[in-house]
């Protein structure tokens, strides 16, 4: 199955119609989710009143922060084992987008946290800390790739780092949980998950799917740009040598 996807030509064919489709679907779903979230659903005073509406961006961003790191690590693994170029192109494309959504998650979380918990940043909230370290993992990955002088070296170094990072994520998560369970602040309202009313759940799910589709479409666009850049470089090299 990997080999079927590993063909750049096949990827270009597939993404040429899949990416626009995803963009359109994402626009519809995000618009619907925002309309529901910002205007239709009742505000929840227990979660800070109207500010809780930021949830319809914050939660999709948090989901994508985690999913994108996992995706990058899996793509790195596939490239490292089978050396399928498309997998490396995907890992390279995911990194800046994953970092963006992770930053979005941190920013919306801080904006939500200030009026609700009275602070922009809570050092003993396990999820904030985990997401912050995930953000640093993304930054390190991007910086390492940028520092390498050839594409092959960037791919290899990036793959090693992404896999080491993925192995460490559970350990980081566990240590942060242990750290924060020590002095859990009562003012921190933790999860709204299981008790959430269906009126919030639907827009949230739709919004999450919309963000995921937008993410996937952007990844495909970046990958297409990378493939065309490489082809252009090859053509230029061929012209220079006069073949």
């Amino acid at each position, binding site marked *: 199955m990997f080999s079927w996807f590993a063909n750049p030509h096949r990827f270009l064919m597939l993404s040429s119609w899949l990416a626009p489709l995803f963009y359109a679907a994402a626009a519809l779903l995000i618009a619907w989710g925002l309309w529901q979230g910002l205007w239709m659903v009742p505000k929840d005073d227990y979660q800070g009143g109207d500010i809780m509406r930021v949830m319809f961006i914050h939660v999709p961003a948090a989901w994508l922060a985690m999913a994108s790191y996992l995706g990058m690590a899996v793509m790195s693994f596939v490239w490292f084992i089978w050396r399928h170029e498309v997998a490396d192109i995907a890992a390279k494309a995911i990194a800046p987008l994953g970092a963006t959504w992770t930053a979005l998650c941190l920013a919306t979380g801080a904006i939500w946290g200030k009026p609700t918990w009275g602070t922009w940043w809570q050092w003993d909230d396990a999820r904030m800390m985990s997401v912050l*370290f*995930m953000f*640093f*993992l993304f*930054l*390190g990955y991007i*910086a*390492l790739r940028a*520092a*390498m*002088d050839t594409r092959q*070296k960037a791919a*290899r*170094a990036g793959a*090693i*780092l992404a*896999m*080491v*990072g993925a*192995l*460490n994520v559970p*350990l*980081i998560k*566990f*240590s*942060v949980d*242990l*750290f924060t*369970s*020590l*002095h859990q602040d009562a003012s921190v309202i933790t999860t709204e998950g299981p008790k959430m009313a269906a009126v919030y759940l639907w827009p949230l799910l739709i919004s999450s799917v919309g963000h995921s589709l937008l993410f996937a479409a952007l990844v495909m666009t970046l990958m297409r740009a990378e493939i065309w850049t490489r082809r252009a470089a090859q053509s230029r090299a061929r012209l220079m040598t006069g073949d």
Partner: protein
Amino acid sequence: MTPAPILSAFRQALGEAWAGGAGALLPVGFFAGAAVLVPLGVGTDPETLRTIGPGILWVSLALSSLVTLERIFQADAEDGSLDLWLQTGAPAASIAAAKTLAHWLTAGLPLALLSPFLLLMFQAQIGGALLENMLYYAFGGLAFYFWGGVSAALAATVRRGGLLISLIALPLYVPTAIFGALAMGDGPSSAAAPLFLAASTLFALAVAPFAMGAALRLAAD
């Protein structure tokens, strides 16, 4: 496969520690200097210093490891020793582990040995806890040096890779820093924290050499 290249890497790393004049005193000086700056910044209230002292030393230890690790594999990649070692067929992971271990012995362990004196300067009470903490710094430092070694190996061919090494290593240092700080506190999980610290260090010892080995083969290309 013979152990010769691994031993050679180990001996060379020990020898490098004494090269360049001040030798193994340099990391000690950096460690103490970084720690001593803190009371100048936060004030000299004894109660505050006693609370933050152990944490300051963890941060100083992490910084020292990052600063001293920058060149550990770079020089080998430049002068060709790395190619020679790999040509003998010795596993790159073992060479990397030997080098990192030697580096920890010369640049990490002395810092742990110094820690009781610095903690006394931070108003700690004389007692068995000082020796216990020394053990935690030694063991946690081992994890710092091994994860730092991974980023140093990845950046071995990067000019002025110091900042890059720090950025990569920072998230990998988190579990050790947290378990170490918890082990020295008096919270409910401080009894279990030393075990977690030991476990995360053993995890580093098991995983990091292979990542370093893969990165060194990349640097040798």
